[in-house]
């Protein structure tokens, strides 16, 4: 019950406030619904992070399960940036805030690496929807991977590089960077999922299915691994759409949604569902699917742009042209240079 939970949190904070007055506290925010871990010290590595708790006991967490880490003493803007990008998708505002920071004044050293990463992350996410320079974003990422090869966001940086190359249809390079994730056993499934989507974009559904099946067969456990399995299942459904079996794909995706925990649902699932419904000639159901993205999962700009791009046509098909115009207006305003705005 929420009452109980709140009191628990309050108590925990009171205790820690008492104990932690002489130390800077690090916070580990995990993927999914698990609670935040407070630590005396967090040491980051490429594959795992090491958490030293208040009793000086160490534990390890795979980087795949880490959403972000707040380092004690880091600038407030950086802490805010992590929250706003991961939870709220506010890349433009965060970029504006972080680029004003003087890097030489940032402590601790882990925060300096984080600063470099989050600036690169924001640039990339914006470039993926046509805002900002993708070349500058790529350079920032490459510099980051070169300067901080042992940082816990190393693999994510490689994934973002893969995304940039994919946007430019340089699929071989995209696969190369995605492949880097396979060097981490918890991220191997994700690597396969990303490679699967790359094949799908090249209209190679059979190769895509192989990659998705490899992800599904992965034995890694934990919320992150489960998320990848869901994405792989959705990817396979997208392959089914590509093969002209939209009705089957709808059933597949609905099954994935049915079995997902609330925090496991995301924009990709609903965008693929929307596409499948549209190809199954059910415009209303397609609108419903894309509305999930627009109203609930709009944090990822690229996914949001895709949803709006489809809604602008589909609304008209179901006799609501003014809503289609509204979707188009928002698309033009939010993502004016994305591929969906110019279609």
């Amino acid at each position, binding site marked *: 019950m*929420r009452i109980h939970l709140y009191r628990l949190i309050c108590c925990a904070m009171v205790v820690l406030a008492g104990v932690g007055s002489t130390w800077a506290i690090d916070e580990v925010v995990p993927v999914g619904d698990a609670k935040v871990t407070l630590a005396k010290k967090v040491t980051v590595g490429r594959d795992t992070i090491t958490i030293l708790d208040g009793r000086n006991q160490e534990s390890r967490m795979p980087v795949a399960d880490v959403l972000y880490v707040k380092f004690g003493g880091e600038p407030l803007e950086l802490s805010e940036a992590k929250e706003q990008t991961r939870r709220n998708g506010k890349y433009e505002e965060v970029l504006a805030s972080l680029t004003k920071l003087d890097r030489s004044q940032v402590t601790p050293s882990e925060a300096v690496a984080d600063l470099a990463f989050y600036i690169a992350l924001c640039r990339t996410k914006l470039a993926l929807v046509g805002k900002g320079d993708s070349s500058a974003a790529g350079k920032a990422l490459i510099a980051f991977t070169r300067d901080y090869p042992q940082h816990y966001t190393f693999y994510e940086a490689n994934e973002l590089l893969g995304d940039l190359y994919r946007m430019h249809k340089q699929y071989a390079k995209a696969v190369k960077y995605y492949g880097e994730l396979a060097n981490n056993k918890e991220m191997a499934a994700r690597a396969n999922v990303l490679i699967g989507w790359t094949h799908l974009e090249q209209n190679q559904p059979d190769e895509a299915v192989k990659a998705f099946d490899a992800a599904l067969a992965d034995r890694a456990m934990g919320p992150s691994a489960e998320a990848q399995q869901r994405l792989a299942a959705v990817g396979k459904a997208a392959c089914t759409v590509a093969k002209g079996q939209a009705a089957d794909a709808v059933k597949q995706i609905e099954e994935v949604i049915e079995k*997902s925990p609330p925090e496991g649902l995301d924009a990709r699932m609903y965008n693929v569902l929307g596409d499948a419904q549209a190809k199954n000639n059910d415009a209303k159901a397609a609108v419903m699917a894309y509305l999930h993205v627009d109203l609930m999962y709009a944090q990822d700009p690229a996914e949001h742009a895709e949803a709006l791009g489809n809604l602008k046509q589909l609304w008209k098909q179901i006799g609501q042209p003014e809503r289609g115009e509204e979707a188009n207006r928002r698309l033009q305003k939010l993502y004016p240079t994305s591929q969906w705005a110019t279609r």
Partner: protein
Amino acid sequence: MSNACARRIAIGLSALIAAGLFHSSATAGEPATEFLSALRQAGYHDMALDYLEGAKTSKAFDAEFKQNLPYELGVTLIDMAQAQRTERARDQYFDRAIAQFDGFIKNNAGKPKVNDARNRLTELNVLRALSRIERSAAPGADKSKLLDEAKGFFDEAEKIIESQKTEADAAFAKFKGWDEKKDKDKEAERNSALFDVVWSRLQQSQVEYMRAKLHAAGSNELSVQLKKAAAAFNKVYTDYQKLYYYGSLKARLGEGRCYQDLGDLKQAATLYDECLGGPADPDIFRDLKTKTFVYACEVWIDPTVDKAQSAAERGGEWLIQARPNEARNHDWLALRYFVARAKEEIVKKASAPNPPKDEAGTLNPAARRAHIDDAIRLVRPVAAHPNPYRTPAQELLDRLGSGGSDDRDEPKSFAEAKTRGDDLFGSIRSKMFLIDKIKEDLTNPNNTPEEVKRMKEDLASAEKAIETMQPQVIAYYRLALSLARPSDKLDDINTVRFNLCLIYYQQDKYYEAAVIGEFLLQRYPRSPGGRNASKIALASWSKLNGERIAKKEDNKFELARMAGVAQGILTTWTDKETANDTNVLLANIYIEQGQYAKAKEHLDKVSPDFPKLPAAKMSLGQALSREYFTKKRLPEGERPDEAELTKLMEDAQALMEDGIRSMDEMGMVTPHLVNAAYSLAQIYIDDAKNAKAIPLIEHARYGPLTLLKAKNPVVQPPNFKDPDFAIATYNLALRAYIGAIGEDPELLAKAEQTIASLEKLVDSETLLFSYTRMAQELKKQLADAPEAQKQSIASGYVKFLVKMRDGGNSDKYDTLAYILKSFEGLAEGFSEEGKPLSPQAKSFYAEAVKTGETILSLVDKKKISPSENAMLAVRAVLARCASRTGEFETALDMYEAILEEKPYLLSVQVDAAMAYQEMGRTDSKYYKYALGGGRPGARVGEKAKIWGWTQISKVTLKNAKFIDTFHEARYQMAVCYFELGRATENERSRKIYLTNTKKATLAIFTQFPTMGGTELRAKYDRLIKAAQKELGESPVGLTEFGPAPADS
């Protein structure tokens, strides 16, 4: 109380209820509750209803959600009710919601959600009470009755809460002596019971608060009631602060609202500050904090509290926490509004004559501008989306956007000017949305007069605001374009261009809109507004084209521009929808230009299932059939060969048959389909294929006659004008039947029945008009029919007409008039211009005369008494018959007698002039009378009764209604000159007459480029060639006068 206020209060109650939703546990699967809530917040209630409908059978929804469907439906209906503009409409939704909740409560006794349903019923009663209170404030309202009704609803809400409270207290009492450590397994149950206890008290306090609205502002009763509510909230806070922190914070917030309404803003602000000290996690606290900021900011910006700076800073900081999927959340939108208001207040304070010497007072102009720009950015989404603060947000945007602050200098850069323009443009869009909504609401037949009055006032106000803002927007955008530099983003510049294009179109400035639209199409088609701008360009040229056609002016330029833009669209955007739409449009343009092969080319590119294709095929088919008849009537030598003509008609009919088939396959019987059947039947009849026309007219599904007899709504107003459609259909049926009597004598009975139906339908005058038209069509039909069919048609008509005249209808004027005109039509159908009358034509004229004399005889015997005009018409026909059969003097006598009474009877003037022309064939002197009028042998000084062509053309020039007669007169003048020139032997006179032919033609050529239409133009061309030949010149026709007008 304003709508916004009422809805805020309702929000308060809803929020109480919404927070209670955390009873439900998170389960796997579709996030139904959250998505449903998001749909409602976005105003997509129709989608929410569909979502709930779909949930009934979908596996993606868990059992609990499905069980709660009636509840969720009720909640959605409450939201929909609040979006209605009239109380009647709101009550209808409320009634449906009550039915859902009552059913849900009945079928789910003991389940947790039942309490939520009761809470919603409470909310509903409160909303109805607030609605009555609002209505009671309107002028002329029965205040006492409405307030009594409101009180009744409050009492009903109170009853529901009281029973909930009793149940909750009893349930919680079971946990007396509960030990946190020993009874841990019962903790969840206890917490749930505690929640219900606190919640029922909170609701009770909330209803007490709402009751205050029953009393007038500033009254003692109001103050007493608010204090009572504040005390109730305070008790909840005090009693449960340690047991249920969240509930106690909500009570504190409620208490603050009471003090706010009492005017004790300081106390309210203190209480809000206390609430703001609470946590921001988890989400229920976060949501509470957001709502608290809304109320706090409202208080802070009040001049008596004077803490606008706090509102701007603290409210602004909290706004950063908003998540992307909260963009349309009402509380976040409200907060945006109040933070924007705070900024407005800050700037106002700094701009006052004696500003304070604090931070706000020393704000420099740049800082003030930054505040205004910020405020505009904040409030724009509030003004754009449905929410309780939309109207005040729009008003705020208008104030800010129209440069309400004195510190808003003229923009100095493209970006500044664009932003100013954008803000006003956004306001205009909001107002247009409002106008559409009001117009929709006005169509409700159940609106009361006061509701209609209010809506019309709102409509006028919105339209006036748009009228004021449009020129301002144009000025800003044009300034922006003039200030644009290479460093400014091209997309932004093109967005300004597109917005300008749109506004010009909205203002009916079609040339300006078309110019900008075409520019964007040609230079920046892929810019953000490129595609839409090209559509506007097309629409603009289409409007201008329509204006030209309406004024009967030359529209070739507009058509050419339309074609150009359409081609541009086709080559730039290749998606199917655009291609289909544009190809159909181009086809229609080419049809109008007479380029039928190009039209067909474009129609062939359209997808077979495209809905607009059948109508386009019909248009082309009709155009080809008109082309067929025009070419068929050309003189020998110019007429195409029979094979070409036959192909033309076959193509025409095939297109139309295909169009009808496609429309029929679409399933529905539409007015278009009925019209199409009518048109094709008409063509069959004109082509003497009556046997094919009859099945169309009588088609069981879409035959116009079938539907007319069945009084099918498809053929009633507003789809077709009454009784025009009925007359036209009976007319058509009659022509079809009579024309086929020769092949099937049994059709005679159907023809008689049709005449009877027609006579029952309309009055005499309309009937006569109808008969006249039928006779004219008969004439045309005969002229175009091949000989064999001509005879068959004629024999059918003769049988029918003779039976009518000499049978039972022989003493009805209308019928006799029809018979008279029909015989005349038959006669003219068997006559050829310039050739002697055939025996058949003579016999028909004789029958016409016989019929006319029958009419006159019946009038003399007083057996019928047609109107004066009707009698004139009969006499005119008899005069014409006399003229046609060569009894010219008799004809002229009759014409003069008619014109003596009615000198301005144009048709008779024309007939008289034509009679002279006929006489001119044997004696050319009569051409002079045809030109100048008068009568040979008339006394000098006697006023001519017959005008002649010259006078006819002068009289008809002044009146656009008679433009066709004008052109006919001018043509005949040219013919008369030519014939005089040909007939005269004197060389000098001959040249003068022939030159006059050319002069008369040139005058028309220069002043009226269309020369009265394609047919007349062709006749002029032939005449001039003949004149040129006579003069020994090269027979180049009209090209002597200059190039033909450009085709596209």
